[in-house]
């Protein structure tokens, strides 16, 4: 696979779109399988949606089908009882902080591995690879000790730092592949013009690597939003629970009331789905443009 510039690839993609075999008439076989797969992926979600608006009584009679009566009270109850509003707010803080932190740490690290004269480049790269493969239990307990000593236990910033650390290796490696594809001439031009390394990085290369940063932002944000394990261990105060743990507590208490639990699930999913719908084009073109050179 040859390395192409950003604009060249865009032209190629557009061209390919036009050359595809095309609509249902030409590719019934493809559509058939796609619909099967779509049902596989989508039906459980629809069941979730349907059940979230059913009252307890209707759930007993009609556990899986389309709701006859739309009962929105489940959402209200779930929101209040599960303290989901607070959970969403906490998660928002966590996700924003983690994304920004990872952008900075992984961005700089990837930049230097990809484009600067870093000694032991291979070594650092391998180090990050290895860290990805470590099970969390390996460092969980000593980490908790450390965090307690410095007073970061049961704080959102404390959890944020952990998330940043855990996500940076993967983000670094992903960003590296994006940054490698940008031609060197731009760096050189900037350096000759007298720009410092930092200026080169931020003003010249960074704008070109935006799709990569967006992709990383999405992946990291998703990971921080859905994360359960660390949140459960490190956060005790109910007011600081992120949404995933809030949902867990809620669902354990209301096992029998599927409608309520489903409503809570939908509340938790909505922000992510909406965000994804808005960003999906950028996300996919981001993946397409760079991150796949392994």
């Amino acid at each position, binding site marked *: 696979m040859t390395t192409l510039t950003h604009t060249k690839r865009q032209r190629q993609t557009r061209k390919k779109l036009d050359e595809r075999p095309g609509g249902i008439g030409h590719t019934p076989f493809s559509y058939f399988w796609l619909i099967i797969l779509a049902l596989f992926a989508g039906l459980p979600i629809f069941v979730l949606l349907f059940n979230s608006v059913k009252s307890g009584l209707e759930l007993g009679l009609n556990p899986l089908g389309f709701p006859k009566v739309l009962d929105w009270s489940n959402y209200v109850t779930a929101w209040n009882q599960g303290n989901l509003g607070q959970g969403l707010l906490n998660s928002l803080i966590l996700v924003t902080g983690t994304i920004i932190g990872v952008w900075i740490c992984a961005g700089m690290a990837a930049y230097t591995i990809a484009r600067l004269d870093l000694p032991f480049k291979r070594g650092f790269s391998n180090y990050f690879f290895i860290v990805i493969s470590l099970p969390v239990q390996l460092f969980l*307990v000593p980490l908790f000790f450390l965090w307690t000593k410095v007073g970061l236990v049961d704080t959102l910033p404390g959890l944020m730092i952990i998330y940043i650390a855990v996500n940076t290796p993967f983000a670094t490696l992903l960003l590296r592949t994006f940054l490698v594809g940008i031609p060197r001439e731009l760096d050189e031009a900037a350096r000759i013009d007298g720009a410092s390394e930092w200026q080169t990085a931020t003003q010249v290369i960074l704008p070109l690597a935006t799709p990569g940063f967006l992709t990383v932002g999405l992946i990291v944000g998703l990971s921080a939003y859905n994360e359960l394990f660390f949140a459960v*261990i490190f956060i005790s105060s*109910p007011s600081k629970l992120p949404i995933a743990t809030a949902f867990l507590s809620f*669902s354990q208490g209301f*096992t029998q009331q599927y409608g309520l639990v489903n409503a809570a699930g939908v509340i938790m999913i909505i922000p992510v789905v909406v965000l994804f719908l808005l960003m999906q084009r950028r996300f996919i073109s981001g993946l397409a443009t760079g991150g796949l050179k392994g």
Partner: protein
Amino acid sequence: MTEYTRRTVLRGAGAAGLSALTIAALAACGTGGSGAVSTSSGGSGPITLWYAPNNPAGWNQWKQWNVDTFEKRYPKIQITAVRQNVNTMTAKQQVALAAGGGPDLITTPGSSNAIAYGLAGYFQDLGTIAKKNKWKESMLPWALDMGYINGKLEALPVSYESMVLYYNKTVFKEHGWKVPTDRASLEKLADEMQAKGIIPFAAGNASYQPATEWLVSMFFNGFAGPSKVYDALSGKAKWTDKEFQGSIQLLKDYFVKGYFQGGVKEYFTTQDPQKYAIFASGKAAMYLSGSWEMQVFPTYFGANGNTNDWAWVPMPPLAPGVPSDTYPLSVGGTMSVNHHSKNIPAATAYIEWLFSDTKNMWAAAAATGSEPLPVKFSASDVPAAVDPRYKAQYLAINDASVAGRVGYVTWTSFGAKADSYIIANIDKVINGGLGVAPFCAGIQTSFDSDKKAGLIPPLFTTGS
């Protein structure tokens, strides 16, 4: 995923039950509690307590009887009750304690856990407080004894319970059945029930995997007998002896026959709400479990159109020579003061209040069915609002404990390692993946390890 687990209900029940003990008044004199509080200078300031409710309603109830009432009495102390998640609380508390933190008031689900913490030095010695409040006279002796770790009173039992046979009274009446009194009558009854398409015992551990250890405890006591269990716990007998192997084999046979929930797979799949529902509706006729269930039954029996009613009897002996009318004793939970707490006076004040306010305890029991503190009481101390079955059960337990007709449960009288081993492996036995003999051998190995580490809780005697 977990709703009415023994541990969660206990935490709720325990703390609610903690509410009150009139100490001197309830003791030898047997007069009603006055609710008078005899505490230290009281202390002031903030303290924290961690509690994992079984459901949100349970949280409010618990808070009402254990936090709000306390705060009214002690306006100078701000108690922050932090709601925890039942599955993760043990891990969190353990790590927090190890790091030198943790809440000011530490609760554990049983003596087996408490000992390990005590030996590690996390607990404050409450001996002087006990003397001052004369707990030795007012509390049930066996329960108070369980709180001693290395000779120091460090983990106070805050609730207690036993294991009994519950049955659906309505269904029994309908079919003219009588409660079983020994193994033969039990099996005959179960076979009859199966013939009629009724499940003999409601059971399920999908919500709370360790639930199988309840049955192990009941079968050890019912088949091998409390004296034999005592011998094994004191080292005179071995867990590989034929009486214990026989107990496990019988349990397994009953599972294979389908007595429990209709089959092994059904047992593993049934979550708590379903389990209670079939017991309340009569699809299952009996239920082997602990006193904490009395708190749960009102939600299912006589509610939402259900017209059935429940009753209980002590577990019948399952082998000749085993005494009947015995009650395995279990400490539902313990409470201790964190040695590293920054506000020990206030924390101690809470514990003292807890054990002195009997009126609150009984009010909570009447309102919610929560378990009582392990204090001596007589029938006249119990207010009329308390469910008579509840009253009868606890009176029976108290009488039995005085007379020595008691048994042992795995989570109170066994060491932590043996308890975890049983929890982790009994499912494999009933599933057919592990043999009875190796299972018992494994218990022995864990027991020996516990003994070496000094983790076996104090052993009360049995045998009448």
